[in-house]
């Protein structure tokens, strides 16, 4: 550990220190725990295995100003034809003016800060439960200094049809924001959430985001994450998911842009008969660096998990995939499938792929695979020989490859939007 690195962390903490929260002692206590944890932690270097392929220099060397509430026109960020409750968080602050939703029975929906003031039971029970003492500096930073975000709790046996669409926006230049969500699906509930991570205008903004998910027995929860941070911006997003028996959790992550994007997805499957789907697509251009780290921890028997991550990397972009699946000793009859496929469109693009399986049970079906390559020339020629231009043939094939990764998005209009977006980005 060098003094230079210590200074970076100190600079970082100094930028965050003016934040005032005025929370009750319980939540203040949680923040203080995290601050104590931070004292023991430091920014990872390329020697840290978990961060081996992602250098954080761009993020940690920058000097930030604290994000402030802001008001912008959100029309362009809405998904066409999507009927959804819209919730807006800007620079880590909930914006009641820009949000547009109806209150429905069985759903508790507020900003996280309001939920803390109200002291909801669900909040006290689940908030910070899956994020503390993980020895991860960015998680600890968010635990200590998160500003605001969404609190969504669906009551027992409620099937919420209309999805929730969160617009998580950063504005300005060199803005640091730390948003935080908690999603609770109580026993037998169903809910679908979309969260778009957007940057407006400036550059070198850094959003360190955390979402926690509590997926109770028999609950179906789908979370669709769209990362579309144009220009030169940084994002670290962590999802901590906890699944109870017979539950179904699906996450689809589409990353279109971003100078540095790191997703940490951690799913704890702590009961039987669960299904877990985690799918991702990343399209890298220019010098984009997009990193997906996933962990599925199967602790109990009779569960299935399916994971497909695909990347299309152009120019000098880099894709990183590290998927870990643990199958603990008790987790017999687990089916776990994991796949990462990359297409490199340029000689200077890079894919780092590391699928990992750790199996301690003996009666399981698990597989993992990873491919990285160029487009099949023979297929291109085949399409050309039917009259399709080389460019058109490439487009057909890359589109097919990319779209396939996000097949499990169940919201039709979102699916169409994503497909159109893929075509636009790849054209």
């Amino acid at each position, binding site marked *: 550990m060098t003094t230079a690195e210590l200074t970076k962390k100190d600079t970082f903490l100094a930028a965050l220190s003016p934040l005032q929260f005025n929370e009750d002692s319980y939540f203040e206590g949680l923040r203080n725990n995290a601050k104590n944890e931070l004292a023991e932690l430091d920014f990872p270097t390329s020697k840290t295995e978990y961060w081996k392929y992602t250098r954080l220099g761009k993020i940690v060397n920058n000097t930030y100003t604290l994000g402030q509430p802001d008001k912008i026109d959100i029309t362009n960020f809405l998904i066409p034809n999507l009927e959804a409750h819209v919730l807006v968080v800007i620079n880590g602050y909930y914006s009641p003016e820009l949000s547009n939703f109806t209150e429905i029975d069985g759903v508790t929906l507020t900003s996280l800060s309001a939920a803390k003031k109200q002291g909801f039971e669900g909040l006290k029970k689940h908030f910070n439960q899956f994020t503390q003492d993980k020895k991860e500096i960015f998680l600890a930073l968010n635990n200590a200094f998160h500003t605001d975000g969404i609190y969504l709790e669906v009551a027992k046996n409620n099937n919420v049809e209309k999805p929730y669409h969160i617009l998580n926006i950063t504005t300005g230049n060199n803005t640091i924001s730390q948003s935080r969500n908690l999603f609770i699906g109580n026993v037998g509930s169903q809910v679908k959430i979309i969260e778009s991570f957007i940057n407006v205008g400036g550059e070198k903004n850094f959003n360190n985001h955390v979402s926690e998910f509590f997926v109770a027995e028999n609950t179906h929860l789908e979370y669709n994450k769209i990362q579309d941070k144009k220009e030169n911006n940084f994002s670290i997003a962590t999802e901590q998911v906890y699944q109870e028996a017979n539950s179904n959790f699906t996450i689809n992550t589409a990353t279109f842009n971003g100078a540095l994007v790191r997703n940490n997805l951690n799913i704890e499957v702590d009961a039987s008969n669960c299904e877990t789907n985690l799918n991702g697509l990343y399209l890298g251009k220019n010098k984009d660096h997009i990193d997906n780290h996933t962990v599925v921890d199967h602790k109990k028997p009779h569960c299935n998990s399916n994971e497909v991550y695909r990347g299309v990397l152009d120019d000098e972009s880099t894709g990183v995939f590290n998927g870990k699946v643990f199958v603990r000793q008790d987790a017999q009859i687990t089916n776990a499938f994991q796949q990462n496929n990359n297409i490199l469109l340029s000689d200077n693009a890079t894919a780092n792929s590391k699928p990992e399986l750790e199996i301690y049970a003996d009666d399981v079906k698990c597989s993992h695979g990873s491919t990285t390559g160029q487009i*099949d020339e*023979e*297929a291109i*020629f*085949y*399409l*050309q*020989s*039917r*009259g*399709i*231009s*080389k460019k*058109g043939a490439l487009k*057909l*094939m890359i589109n*097919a*490859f990319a*779209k*396939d990764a996000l097949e499990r998005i169940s919201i039709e209009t979102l699916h169409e939007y994503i497909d159109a977006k893929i075509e636009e980005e790849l054209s």
Partner: protein
Amino acid sequence: MIKINNLHASIDGKEILKGINLEVKAGEVHAIMGPNGSGKSTLSSVLAGREEFEVTEGSVEFDGKDLLDLSPEDRAREGLFLAFQYPVEIPGVSNINFLKTAINEKRAYLNQEPVSAKEFLGMVKEKSALVELDSKLANRSVNEGFSGGEKKRNEIFQMAMLSPKLSILDETDSGLDIDALRIVANGVNKLKSPNNATIVITHYQRLLDYIVPDFVHVLYNGKIVKSGGKELAIELEEKGYDWIKSENVEL
């Protein structure tokens, strides 16, 4: 329709075609036969525009145009069709979607209006029936998970959809059982017209029982060494390719 004149081609510096001369007129069916390694597939690859092959000498005129000057896609748009010996599987790209793209790119090239959805669906229905191709296959990814016979039928289905002027069938009979062979040949025969032409490349005479050629050419060692009517194919079947080889040694 196509005039091949003294065509020489090589791959990795090795000459495979050593001066092919062939003229095919509209309405004709030509068969090109020959032993393995004689250059049959190279000829079809060179005509379709595979980049690995280098044309070192000669010319090919297709409907008045210099074929060798055109990109593979432009050759197709001008009306050349190659039915592949080994059709390629393309996961994720639907048969229908790709054919629609192909037809519309061809139409755009010919300054024609794009095909309407109704017209296209009508075509799919009609042409898939021609080769008894299950309409479900038409909706699947290109050749993915198709049986050998289904792949070959899909080639003829695509040929029917694109209505080319000149079709080159490269060993279309390979890997087909007798029923599939009949279906494929039937499809080809139904597509025959006074305005189009077919080159059938095959190792065996069997296919020519169903697709009856007007002319048969024997390719050996990169050259056409013998030409004749359909009886030549039968003679070849009886005497075997050794007959040609020994004759050529004597030459």
